[in-house]
Structure formats: structure tokens, C-alpha cells
């Protein structure tokens, strides 16, 4: 292992973990690049913690390997992996002061006292808790405890920083604040972060890359915008943001895409660089509500549907509408409030439209 360098890359290769018959991890492979902020996102029970704990060394995988800078670390006990870890609930040592908590990893590494002083103070400065150094964890607020846990996990310049839902216990405002703080910290320190959450907004706003997990597998990974705009499956489209799903059969191939038909309606759908699905195949297209526009007049979108506003709600910045269409049933539409002018009315007939490139062909699972 190269010492002194900040940020390391990690490769997880074909990792499986069984509890009896049940596969908590099922052949998971993942490459984490140097200095990257990678988020594991998935519903409860999808195996995020199990994967993180395998990387940290607390869970012994049944199959597969974990490589740090191309060297296998799967056989190492947790204390020799040199990873910083922030547990869900922080796991601060209640009998030690903030200073002693943060000094712990340095003390077990037998660093000289002067170095411990300097590094702990620097770490506490970084998380803006220098003034609380001699408090005990129970005397701190949730957000402060979280920052102590962070300082403790980073003070010894670990090879990786592993964070298991570090913000889930906090209220919404504080969470937003600490999200920004974490992001800044990541930029400044340059460590490789592996971050677990089941909060999609958190994942989208903080990560360089997201790996979406389901039933012990990684179903898709990529940059946040990539996952949001081009989800591979219905599950990903639904889990990251909201989506409409248009089902139909492939009716015709056209230049750069195909036509999907359902109950007489024809919808043209662009295809990026992938294969066009064969004629007659049942397909699903995911369509984000905000990519649909209410076309009162003027605009000529590629696809146009008529319907009736079934319900609507106001969110300050936007209206969220549900439009009942004859062909596809209820379609969710989000429009910026400033564009819409008059508030919509239930029962009002409208035309909705979107471009062929707005939707994404997704696998139906």
C-alpha cells in the first residue's frame, strides 16, 4: 500500500454473503475510484450495510474479493484495513471526551503526544468543534455528535471513509446543512468516500457516483444525472425521483428511435446508442413528470396526449398535476408555477406533450 498518498481506489469483485439460504449480497462487483464520493443507495434490506461492513471487515463474505489499490484485503481484520468508519448512530465512546474520542485512533497507533495534540485539534477545527473538546458526547447535540464521529473517522488519514447513513437521525434542516458540510469536507480533504443512504435526494446532491442496490445486487451505477436521466430499469426510475411508465408494443422503427403504440395512441421514443427493440415487443418507457409540458397552444412536441386534470397540488415552486388520459390512464405532470400562470382547475381539459428524447426505455423490473 502506498503510504502518504491521500485517496485510494477500491475494487469489490464478485462479493457474495449468505445468511443461511438468503443472499444478503449476491455477486456484487464495484469499482471505487481515488477521491471519489460514491453513494450506495437502495431500499431497506437491500444489502447496503452488509456491503459496507464487508468492506470494513466486520462481515466475512462467503465469496469474492476486496482489493485496495490492487491488493487483496479480504483476509485482514478490521483494525488493519485503516478505513475510517462513521456508524449509523455514531457509536461515540460515551466515557471519553470529544478530544479523547478523536484521539483514539491515533493513540492505538501509538503516535507521539505532540502529534496527537496537533492532529486532533486540526480535525476538530475542520468540523468546527474546537471549543467543545472537553465535553462528553452526551453533552452534544445530534449534529455535533455526528461531526465528532466524522472527525474521529478522518483524523488518522484513513485509506477510505465509510459512512453508514450518518445523517438519518437528524432533522431536515440540520441534515441539509451537514450535507453541504460533508461535501465541502470531501472536496477539501480529497479522501475516498463510500456513503450509504436510502434518501434519494441526498444521493443525488452529494455523490460523484451512485450505485443503486436491490436484493443484494447492484442494479445500476453511474453519475447522478446519468442515473436520473437514463435509468436502466423501472425500479431505478421509480426509486430515484418519480416517473410515469408508458407500456405498449413496438409498432414501427423510425430513424433514431421507434414508435410505441397502446390503445390506438402512438408515441415516438428516441433511442440513444442502444439497440432498437424488435417489432411487436412489449416495452416500458419511463417518463419524468417534469419533462412533460402542458401545451395550451403554440409548441409542437413530438408526442401529444389529451386528458383532464384529475387533481393538482401547489408546491410553491411548482404545480404537480395528475392528468387522466384515455390511453395511458393517470399521468403525473410537474410544471413550474411561474410558467403556468393561472392555477389549474380539476376537470379542466388539457393537452400534454413531450419530446421523443424525454423518455427512457427501461427494463420492466
Amino acid at each position, binding site marked *: 500500500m502506498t503510504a502518504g498518498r491521500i485517496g485510494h481506489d477500491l475494487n469489490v469483485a464478485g462479493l457474495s454473503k449468505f445468511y443461511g439460504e438468503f443472499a444478503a449480497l449476491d455477486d456484487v462487483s464495484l469499482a471505487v475510484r481515488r477521491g471519489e464520493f460514491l453513494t450506495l443507495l437502495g431500499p431497506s434490506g437491500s444489502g447496503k450495510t452488509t456491503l459496507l461492513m464487508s468492506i470494513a471487515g*466486520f462481515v466475512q463474505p462467503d465469496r469474492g474479493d476486496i482489493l485496495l489499490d490492487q491488493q487483496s484485503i479480504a483476509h485482514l481484520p478490521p*483494525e488493519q484495513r485503516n478505513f*475510517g468508519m462513521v456508524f449509523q448512530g455514531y*457509536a461515540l*465512546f*460515551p*466515557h471519553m471526551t470529544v478530544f479523547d474520542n478523536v484521539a483514539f*485512533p491515533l493513540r*492505538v497507533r501509538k503516535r507521539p503526544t505532540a502529534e496527537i495534540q496537533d492532529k486532533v485539534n486540526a480535525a476538530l477545527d475542520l468540523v468546527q468543534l474546537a471549543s467543545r473538546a472537553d465535553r462528553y458526547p452526551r453533552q452534544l447535540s445530534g449534529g455535533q455528535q455526528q461531526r465528532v464521529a466524522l472527525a474521529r473517522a478522518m483524523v*488518522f488519514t484513513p485509506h477510505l471513509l465509510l459512512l453508514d447513513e450518518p445523517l438519518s437521525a437528524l432533522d431536515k434542516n440540520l441534515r441539509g446543512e451537514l450535507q453541504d458540510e460533508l461535501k465541502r469536507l470531501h472536496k477539501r480533504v480529497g479522501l475516498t468516500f463510500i456513503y450509504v443512504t436510502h434518501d434519494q435526494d441526498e444521493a443525488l446532491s452529494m455523490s460523484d457516483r451512485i450505485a443503486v442496490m436491490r436484493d443484494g445486487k447492484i442494479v445500476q451505477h453511474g453519475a447522478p444525472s446519468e442515473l436520473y436521466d437514463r435509468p436502466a430499469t423501472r425500479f431505478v426510475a421509480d426509486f430515484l425521483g418519480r416517473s410515469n411508465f408508458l407500456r405498449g408494443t413496438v409498432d414501427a422503427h423510425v430513424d433514431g428511435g421507434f414508435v410505441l403504440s397502446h390503445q390506438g395512441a402512438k408515441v415516438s421514443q428516441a433511442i440513444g446508442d442502444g439497440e432498437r427493440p424488435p417489432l411487436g415487443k412489449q416495452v416500458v418507457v419511463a417518463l419524468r413528470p417534469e419533462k412533460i409540458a402542458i401545451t395550451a397552444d403554440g409548441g409542437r412536441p413530438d408526442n401529444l396526449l389529451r386528458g383532464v386534470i384529475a387533481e393538482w397540488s401547489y408546491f410553491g415552486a411548482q404545480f404537480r398535476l395528475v392528468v387522466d388520459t384515455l390511453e395511458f390512464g393517470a399521468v403525473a405532470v410537474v410544471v413550474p408555477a411561474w410558467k403556468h400562470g393561472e392555477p389549474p382547475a380539476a376537470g379542466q381539459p388539457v393537452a400534454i406533450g413531450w419530446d421523443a428524447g424525454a423518455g427512457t426505455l427501461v427494463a420492466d423490473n
Partner: protein
Amino acid sequence: MLSRLAAIDPAPTIGADPSRSSLARRLRVGGSARYWLLMTPALALMIVFYVYPISRVLWISVTEPQPGLENFELLLTSASIHKMLLTTARISVLTTLITLVLAYVVAYALVHAGERARRWMFLGVIVPLWISVLVRAFAWFVLLRREGLINNILMTSGVVDSPLSLIWNETGVMIGMVHYMLPFGILPIYANMRDIDQRCIAAARGLGATRSEAFRKVFLPLSMPGVVGAGILVFMFSLGFFVTPAILGGGKTLMIAEYIKVQILEVVRWGVGTMLAATLVIVIGALLAVLSRFVDLRKLFGSI
């Protein structure tokens, strides 16, 4: 009155039962009066069976054979009392230390055992509490005496040439006492260990501590309140222990409780006996006062 109300309202709903709510209201009137009314039997019992005898003991200790503190002067002057107090202190301290070490190991195993194993282990801890201390002392007597099971095994297997004297000395007393005290050591330590967040231990490992460092620097300090509590509890019990020292000590190892019995029943020096009893009560009271500064007594003695 209840039956009349029930007759008027043939199907009273439980929540809105008028007779019940008026009864409750009447009882709530003068809540503190009701509190004392309910407390009275317990208080009366305490006064008759504890406070009165103990104050009698205190009274006798300063009036018999003549008024004054001369009984208490014996604490400073009498060589035989010194010897007995030293024996009592030595046995109590050693018993407490040995009990704590064993109890810690058992509690640690209990906390880390699987659900099924834990249930069986708990049974093993609790069942001895149901067996009379007298029976247990005699059981140890049977095991430990010169021709007892343990010496027989040691002799026939050739470990020792002549039987070990395991009984009628301090060793025997301590074996019996440690055995008796173990549940009282295990339970408080276990209760405390169970509350320790296991993630703290994992966090310590993740931060670079080896298994033993994580134990020494995190688990052990966090389990200390339980150990201190159990220690004082066991020590207090040990100080006043009577049956086991009397049987396994064989009259040669005199601890304070047996000494008091001898003073009162055999040499009939009530003044000295009650003085020692009073001393014991005072020492235990002081220990409790110290203990209450470290741990929540109510938790230690099993209430919420």
C-alpha cells in the same frame, strides 16, 4: 350502589362507566392522604420488624452493662475483636474480588451468547438462588472434606499425596461464600454490559484497535459501573454472612456475624454483641451512601 347503577344502564361501556369514574374521582380527592393510607401497612411492618429492633440494638449497645460508650472502646482495645474484624475484612475483600472476576467472565459470556444458550446459562445462574444457603453449605462440606469427592479425585489421580485441607479454614469459607455470592455479582454486571452499545466495540476495531485493545479501552471502562455496584453489593453481603462461615469455618474462622452470636447466646455479653451489630449496620449504611454516589441504587436492586 353499583348494582343499582348497572340496573339503570344495562350495558355500561367500560370506558364511560359512571360508577367507576365517580369512584376514581372520590379516591383522587386528597391524593396524598390516600398515598399515606396505602403506605401505612408497609411502614408499620418496617417499624415493627426493622426500625424498632435496630434501635433497641443501638440502645442496648450504649446502656449494657452500664450507660456509656465503653462497649465501643473495645473496638480499639480488644485484641480478639481486632483479630475477628481483620478476618472478616480479609475474607470479605477476597470473596468480593474473586466473585467479581468470576462474575465478570460469566456476565461477559452471557452477553455474547446466542439466544438459546443464554436462556440455559441464566437458569444456571438463577437456580442456586432457590436452594437454601444451608443446603449449599452442607453440599460444599460433603465435596470439600478430607474424604470428600474433590480430595478423593485428587488423591486417586495422583495430583496430591495427602488430602488438602479445603474446609474448616478460610479457604473453605471463601469457596462457599463465592459460590453463594456469584448471582449477586453476575446480575448487576450483566445488566450493565447488556446496555453497552456493541457498535462502540466495532467502532474501536474499525479505528485501529485490536480485539484486546477494544476490550481494555472501551468495553472494560464502560462496564465499570456494573462492577463497582456488584462489588459493593457483594462486599456488604459478605460482611454480615453467617451460615456459610459457621458451617465451613468449623468454629475456627470467626467472622463478625458468628462472633456476635457467640457473644449473645454463649457468653451472654449483650453489650458487646449489640455494639458489633451496631457497627456492622453503620458500616453498611456508610457503604450504601458511598455506593449511591456512583450508581443508581434503584437500578442495582432491580426496580425500574
